[in-house]
């Protein structure tokens, strides 16, 4: 609902501006409105997103372009299909699918708990940390939430933890997945905007730490009421137990090291690291005794399905974008926005609001692929850094996943509960995390250096 209201306000703003004669593109505004209308109609009608984008491109092409644009469709679609950068996406997905089946999540959770159990808030911290770590090696937030939920929820049975905070922290942890490198959103963003994926991964480090700290603060703040007080008389776990738990952490840590180490060390491109990660994951699955033909076959199937799903949307987006660029739409839009009587930060706030609204009913990848080709030129024209914007967009996609009342992750967690509570528990539990996540975006707006200093230093 919030989404629709916001989108209407945005459209209203544009109409009002065109009536007041602000900006030179009065004619353009009519067309843009028509487009936005068609877009909403298509999406509302439940048309496949890839098809909606593609058909829109065809309609616009036939209506406005006097060149035989359709002769380029083959090449336009072939280019992203065979892009070496994009190969990283199925490989990271594959790695996640294998790890999902390799039985590492349970050990990860227990091992982290040994280290975190004495903090006020106890297991709640483990929720965040374990989800964060796991999502760093898994591509999908839904899968992360489902995995960590299934591992974590049994631990809370019969404890005095507030179920709202338990669910809220699990959801919040899942929403770290794509922000903490290596995330797939960054690869797709990098592909579409021709930004360096390595630079995006470096830029994501600062904001990731920021968001994790904000989450920890939320839990510490809520700890008194949400978690049972740690009994000071319980003996501390002996160091030997703690050290032994590190063994359980090792496979995950080594994998993260292989993947991120090679990327950050400049030894390999994101695609090559992803390939190393896949092989590493297979090796660890074999050590766990979980490697089998069926397991690999299932992973292969899930990977192929999720890649084709992204591929179809990319096809549509590239066709639409080809037509758009031929007609000069992004440049015109950038010019239009540039001449708005609004300071850049206000436009950026509108864009952020737009993404938050869109995110309530659209899945992350679709959102990025659909909107970035049009919005990116505007952002660059406003003088913002492409790498910085990539981090912002990724954070917004993550926020969308946990925004009540539509966030996917929330429903997955609700579906796994066995205490029969209402979905509103999940909503009210996640709200503090949701709010500090938005706070994180605003902080990053104020201090872009938080994201940008690391890529600069690395250069």
């Amino acid at each position: 609902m919030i989404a629709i209201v916001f989108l209407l306000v945005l459209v209203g703003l544009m109409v009002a501006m065109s009536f007041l004669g602000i900006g030179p593109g009065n004619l353009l505004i009519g067309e843009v409105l028509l487009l936005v209308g068609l877009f909403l109609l298509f999406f509302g009608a439940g048309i496949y997103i890839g098809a909606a984008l593609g058909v829109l491109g065809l309609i616009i092409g036939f209506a406005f372009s006097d060149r035989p644009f359709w002769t380029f469709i083959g090449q336009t679609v072939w280019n992203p299909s065979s892009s070496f950068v994009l190969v990283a996406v199925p490989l990271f997905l594959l790695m996640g699918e294998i790890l999902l089946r390799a039985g590492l999540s349970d050990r990860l959770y227990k091992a982290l708990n040994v280290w975190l159990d004495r903090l006020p808030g106890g297991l709640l911290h483990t929720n965040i940390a374990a989800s964060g770590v796991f999502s760093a090696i898994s591509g999908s937030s839904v899968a992360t939430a489902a995995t960590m939920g299934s591992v974590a929820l049994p631990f809370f049975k019969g404890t005095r933890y507030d179920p709202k905070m338990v669910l809220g922290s699990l959801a919040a942890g899942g929403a770290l997945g794509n922000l903490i490198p290596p995330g797939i959103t960054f690869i797709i963003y990098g592909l579409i905007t021709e930004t360096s994926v390595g630079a995006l991964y470096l830029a994501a480090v600062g904001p990731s730490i920021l968001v994790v700290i904000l989450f920890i603060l939320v839990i510490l703040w809520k700890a008194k009421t949400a978690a049972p007080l740690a009994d000071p008389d319980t003996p501390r776990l002996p160091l030997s137990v703690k050290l032994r738990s590190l063994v359980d952490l090792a496979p995950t840590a080594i994998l993260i090291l292989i993947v991120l180490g090679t990327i950050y060390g400049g030894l390999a491109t994101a695609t090559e690291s992803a390939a190393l990660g896949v092989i590493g994951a297979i090796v660890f699955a074999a050590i766990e005794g979980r490697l089998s033909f069926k397991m690999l076959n299932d992973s292969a199937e899930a990977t192929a399905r999720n890649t084709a799903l992204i591929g179809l949307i990319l096809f549509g987006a590239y066709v639409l974008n080809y037509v758009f660029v031929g007609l000069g739409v992004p440049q015109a839009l950038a010019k239009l926005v540039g001449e708005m009587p609004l300071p850049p930060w206000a436009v950026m706030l509108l864009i952020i609001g737009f993404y938050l609204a869109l995110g309530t009913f659209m899945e992350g990848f679709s959102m990025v692929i659909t909107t970035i080709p049009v919005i990116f030129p505007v952002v660059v024209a406003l003088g913002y850094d492409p790498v910085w914007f990539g981090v912002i967009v990724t954070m917004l996609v993550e926020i969308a996943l946990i925004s009540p009342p539509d966030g996917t992750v929330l429903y997955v967690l609700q579906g796994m509960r066995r205490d029969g509570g209402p979905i509103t528990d999940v909503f009210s539990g996640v709200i503090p995390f949701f709010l500090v996540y938005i706070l994180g975006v605003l902080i990053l707006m104020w201090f872009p250096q938080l994201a940008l200093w690391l890529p600069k230093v690395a250069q």
Partner: protein
Amino acid sequence: MLDRMIVAAALCRRLVARLGTFMGYAAGWGFILCAAFITFDVLARRFLGFSSQSTTELTGYALAFGISWALAHTLTSRAHVRIDVLINFLPAKIRYPMHLLSLAALAVFVGFVAKGAWDLVDESLLFGATDISVLRTPLWIPQGLWTFGILVFLVLILLMLAESTLLVLAGRGSEAEALLHQRTYDEEAAEALEAVGALDTLPGAAIDKGATT
């Protein structure tokens, strides 16, 4: 008459879907091979001092192959993304035609893409185009495989469109919907749980699983 046509359409659709599923698995294994190949190349470059010098091209082709060969399977698994928040609120009378419309739009778009892909292969053959790697791969080979995947996808869409239209005409729209509706959160969650091996502890999570086969 109508019923007999539905049976015929469903039979054809199942056959193509079977082919598509097989191709989907092939696509997935392609990615596993791709990972192995890149890993080998990286390690060989680092430690053995040689490289195939064509990773970029070959893995790019593996991706094109992987995307296009899995398209049909993804459609059968109802995993292509649609936004169905709104239409789920509509009465069946409007909802069923909407499903057909969305499939028709997909057919139009994929029809154009297939034509474009076909022309691309044609051109590559005509000019004997190769890539710039040391292998000088003739481009029609990867592009041809890629086009084949898209063509199978197109055929499947058309068959599903025929079958669903007939079903709706015969007043069996709910069966068409079962073929076309977007996967639900429950299905997503159930799949992830099954993968982790946690399904036995959470029996309720398997709702809907297999309800559409």
